[in-house]
């Protein structure tokens, strides 16, 4: 049991590391297509983290919505707008140095904050949620936001349709 | 009607302004007559108020008070006393005169008279408002028509002059607004009511800050020395009637502000600021005099002479004595009529010759003898010739100042000499000397122009010979003011 927990723990760390590397890949890889693939990796990695945190429903949604829907869309868009064989040069702008510095400082600041904060941990942690729990919540207290989301999606689709559709004279 | 006489005085021009707007294009010729009639009616209301005015009291008279923004204690509060009434009278008079002088305006007449009458409402309101916010409102209302009047109908650099005038004054008045708000929050009862504020004793530190804030607003309008640079531009570029109003009324709004608000509400700060005020006044007097002397532009010379003469008003204020105050008030009045007249005269010759370069003239005394006589008369009044109003006020200011500081009075006397120097030089260049053949056919000053000047001249003479006719209106107010600063009220 100990060993399993140990393995699980280190496995999770490894997962985090891999995901982080993939994230770096998303932002640094010269080829946008590769970067998109890296993002898929990150998304899957994050989904795995959700699963590890016993948020299985969320993990599933992550895979379905993100990887399934959004990423397909993105990659489709990439292929629409750019040939895959675009020369690799010049995919980053001239802000690399200040951006790196800024991001680094931001990361350090946030890390320091994270470690210096005494997080008010709930003793024993919250119990894991089932899909049913979430469903009840969405139909209960979160009913209105849930409905609003649907409106947002409708509006977004209507608008996106108008904007993206080809003009016929 | 007489119960709301001050409102009538203030808003009659506004009514007239909208009437002017309503005149259809085909009746364009009547626009100026409607406007003139409006100013005359306003003048009649002022005369009516004159009969109602009691000389016996320093209290506010003909008060009108209605809540305007009750949540903020802002009132529609009009009233008059010896400080404001002469200014109201002056405004009414000058507005009639300048309206007559505007007949030469041919371009965009409707707009012109609309703005002109709007301006009159703003000026009247500024002098009559006794609620600080209301005062500020009127004060700012003045700016906008002024901007257009200079900007549309002005000289070659009109746009520059207009915006410069506008921004200068606006910047100053915004600080004034801050000061007004500071008084509001500094007063226990949270009020903008002038009467209540004068009865409140403010903390000296607050007084100083507010005084400085007010100073920014008022000194720019006066204009006191380092803030005067808008003045030559605005005066020179403005069309003649507007220069007249600028010099005769608008500048007075600054010193009126000191007299009405800064000094009675913030007496300890006034004492604290006394030396600085005197220095600013003296610099204005002497500096203005010298700079006037250096001018070759006729109008600019008169403009700079205003800096010098308004310095006397400030000096009278700085003296903090009864004579100083009455001198300052009288100087406001007499500078109004004198410099107003001078600008009219500059306009007369400019209309004919289309130049204001004094060097281009010469010998006009022979070609336009009537004009020469009037110009000489107003110049002499301006240089403080006894028997004319300028002398009395300068004398009172000097007398008042002398008691406070001999040095100040002595320095101010330099200004008296300077005034003679630049005005006589002007007369020498324009009227005297060999006649310039270029102006041989130049038309003599016409009847309408004379009509605009005569009332002013008569008033100058009357005040100069028997100043009590004006001083009597001011005396109670002066005494209560002097009492604030340790003067002995009788």
């Amino acid at each position, binding site marked *: 049991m100990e060993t399993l927990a140990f393995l699980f723990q280190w496995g999770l760390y490894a997962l985090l590391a891999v995901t982080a590397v993939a994230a770096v890949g998303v932002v640094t890889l010269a080829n946008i297509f590769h970067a998109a693939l890296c993002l898929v990796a990150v998304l899957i990695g994050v989904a795995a983290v959700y699963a590890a945190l016993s948020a299985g429903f969320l993990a599933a949604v992550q895979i379905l919505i993100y990887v399934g829907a959004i990423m397909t869309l993105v990659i489709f868009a990439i292929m629409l707008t750019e040939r895959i064989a675009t020369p690799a040069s010049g995919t980053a702008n001239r802000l690399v140095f200040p951006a790196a510095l800024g991001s680094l400082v931001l990361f350090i600041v946030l890390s320091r904050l994270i470690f210096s904060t005494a997080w008010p941990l709930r003793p024993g942690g919250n119990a894991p949620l089932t899909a049913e729990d979430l469903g009840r919540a969405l139909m209960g*207290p979160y009913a209105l936001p849930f409905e609003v989301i649907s409106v947002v999606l409708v509006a977004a689709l209507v608008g996106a349709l*108008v904007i993206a559709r080809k003009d016929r004279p | 009607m007489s119960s709301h006489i001050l409102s009538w005085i203030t808003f009659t021009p506004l009514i007239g302004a909208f009437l002017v707007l309503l005149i259809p294009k085909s009746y364009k010729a009547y626009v100026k007559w409607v406007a003139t009639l409006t100013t005359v009616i306003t003048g009649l209301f002022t005369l009516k108020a004159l009969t109602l005015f009691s000389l016996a009291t320093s209290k506010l008279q003909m008060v009108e008070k209605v809540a305007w923004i009750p949540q903020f204690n802002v009132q529609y509060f009009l009233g008059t006393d010896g400080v404001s009434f002469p200014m109201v009278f002056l405004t009414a008079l000058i507005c009639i005169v300048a309206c007559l002088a505007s007949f030469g305006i041919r371009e965009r007449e409707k707009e012109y008279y609309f703005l002109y009458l709007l301006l009159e409402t703003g000026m009247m309101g500024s002098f009559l408002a006794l609620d600080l916010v209301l005062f500020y409102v009127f004060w700012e209302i003045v700016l906008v028509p002024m901007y257009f009047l200079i900007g549309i109908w002005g000289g070659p650099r009109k746009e520059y002059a207009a915006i410069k005038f506008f921004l200068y004054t606006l910047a100053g008045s915004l600080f004034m607004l*801050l000061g007004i708000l500071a008084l509001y929050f500094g007063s226990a009862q949270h009020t903008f009511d002038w009467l209540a504020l004068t009865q409140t004793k403010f903390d000296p530190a607050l007084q100083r800050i507010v005084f400085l804030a007010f100073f920014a607003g008022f000194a720019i309008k006066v204009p006191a020395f380092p803030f005067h640079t808008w003045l030559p531009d605005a005066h020179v570029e403005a069309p003649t009637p507007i220069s007249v109003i600028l010099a005769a009324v608008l500048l007075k709004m600054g010193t009126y502000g000191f007299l009405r608000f800064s000094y009675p509400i913030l007496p300890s700060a006034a004492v604290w600021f006394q030396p600085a005020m005197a220095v600013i006044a003296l610099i204005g007097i002497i500096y203005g005099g010298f700079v006037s002397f250096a001018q070759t532009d006729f109008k600019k010379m008169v403009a700079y002479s205003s800096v010098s003469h308004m310095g006397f008003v400030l000096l009278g204020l700085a003296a903090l004595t009864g004579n100083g105050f009455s001198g300052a008030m009288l100087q406001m009045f007499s500078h109004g009529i004198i410099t107003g007249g001078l600008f009219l005269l500059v306009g007369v010759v400019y209309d004919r010759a289309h130049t204001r370069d004094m060097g281009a003239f010469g010998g006009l005394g022979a070609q336009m003898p009537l004009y020469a006589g009037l110009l000489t008369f107003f110049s002499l009044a301006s240089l403080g010739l006894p028997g004319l109003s300028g002398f009395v006020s300068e004398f009172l200011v000097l007398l008042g100042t002398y008691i406070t500081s001999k040095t100040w009075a002595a320095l101010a006397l330099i200004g008296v000499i300077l005034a003679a120097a630049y005005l006589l030089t002007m007369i020498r260049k324009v009227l005297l000397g060999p006649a310039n053949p270029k102006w041989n056919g130049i038309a003599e000053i016409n009847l309408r122009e004379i009509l605009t000047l005569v009332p002013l001249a008569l008033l100058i003479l009357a005040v100069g010979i028997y100043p009590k006719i004006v001083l009597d209106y001011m005396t109670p107010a002066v005494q209560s003011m002097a009492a604030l600063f340790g003067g002995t009220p009788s």
Partner: protein
Amino acid sequence: MNALESLRFFVPEAVLLAGGFLALFLDFFLRNKKWIGGFALAVLVVTACLCVWPDKNSILFSGFFALDRFTYFFRFLALSVVAVTILLSLASPETSGKNEGEYYVLFLFMAFALILAAAAVNLLAIYMAIEFVSILSYLLTGFVKKNPEAKEAAVKYLLFGSVCSGIMLFGMSLLYGASGSLDIAAIGARLGSPAWTGLALTGLLLMLAGIGFKISMAPFHLWAPDVYQAAPTPVTAFLTVAPKAVGFAVLIRLLSASFPALAWKWQAVIMGLSMLTMTVGNLTAISQVNIKRFLAYSSIAQAGYILMGVTVLNVTGLSAVLIYFAVYAFTNLGAFTVVSMVSNQCGNDDLSSYAGLARRSPVPAACMTVFLLSLAGLPPLAGFVGKLFVFSAAIEAHYVLLATVAALNSAAAAYYYFKIVRLMYLTGPIEKTPVASPWPIRLALAFTLAGTLGLGLFPAPLIGFVRLVLGQ
């Protein structure tokens, strides 16, 4: 209150939503799309009529949205702004065409989103409502066909907004983690102790990115000029007012509910940003040549003044914000109404189109002058009342520096407002034909002009109403 109980209070919003879907439905049948605009207007009016003055403040939908007087105020603001925008759109060639139906639908949704945002009292609700407003704004910005600039602006807007909302979300997640709750009042209660200062402040600053983006507060304002310039004029008119208003509503709710204990910290931040915002806005506005871009910077500066009221979050400050917003809405929409008239006629937004406008069409020029003077804060126009109140707030709290900077800024601002006035009155007309003024524009102009003059001359009712809203 749970969802079912809450619905009773939610009738206006429900009507709005229903109207939106109905309009979408009607779009399939109606050939003349202007009718949909008319329908949308009708929906807005009906909604406004259905709004009932809340006797007491209640929290609806299990703690997501507050139905209080504050919401009530912003409901009206949002509805009026959207209504005026639709009026402008009806007359604008930019927004006319095949897709006009969807356009009005989006605006009805927008009204709904705005009200939600103003009512949100929960981080989730705040995020959702703001994101909803943002998404609709991106869409509306890029709505014009074949306008590369509009598309470009939409892209910039989208990228900028997404990053900002990402940053805000991160801040929200931290706050949530530290407090264990998404309710802004609960956050305030949990994070009140000094031990939480660091985290709460970081959370707030990160959230400021999102809210600052909405209210175009420096340094989060950079998107605004580009977007305002390129978006269709009615949309720009809308964007300069409504999203800002709800941004301020959210900011006020957040600061007063979640961070009252940190006031001594954030007041300095907001004050600094207020001065920065007005200065940057004014300085940059001076050298603009495009009227919409010019008004964009002006609106940035105006946001700076409004932030003065936020800095002093007491009754004076809050009434200052609300009053300023009311007058600013009228004034700015009024200015854009005239801009819309001119650009409908001239087809461009160059300042040079305004040369000699006073000769071409005196009435619009005079109205524009009134609006600009009001923006400059000159009495007796509405803008002055707003200025009076924000200055009062600063002076009352003894923020002399803030007041001084604001005063200097106002003077500088007057300069560039007068630049337009100068063009209209002091220069000759390039073209002689007067600009057209169809009835929707006239209606909008009359409405905004009445507001600008009326609120300036008789501000007492508005102030009374605002006091009532604030429970005084």
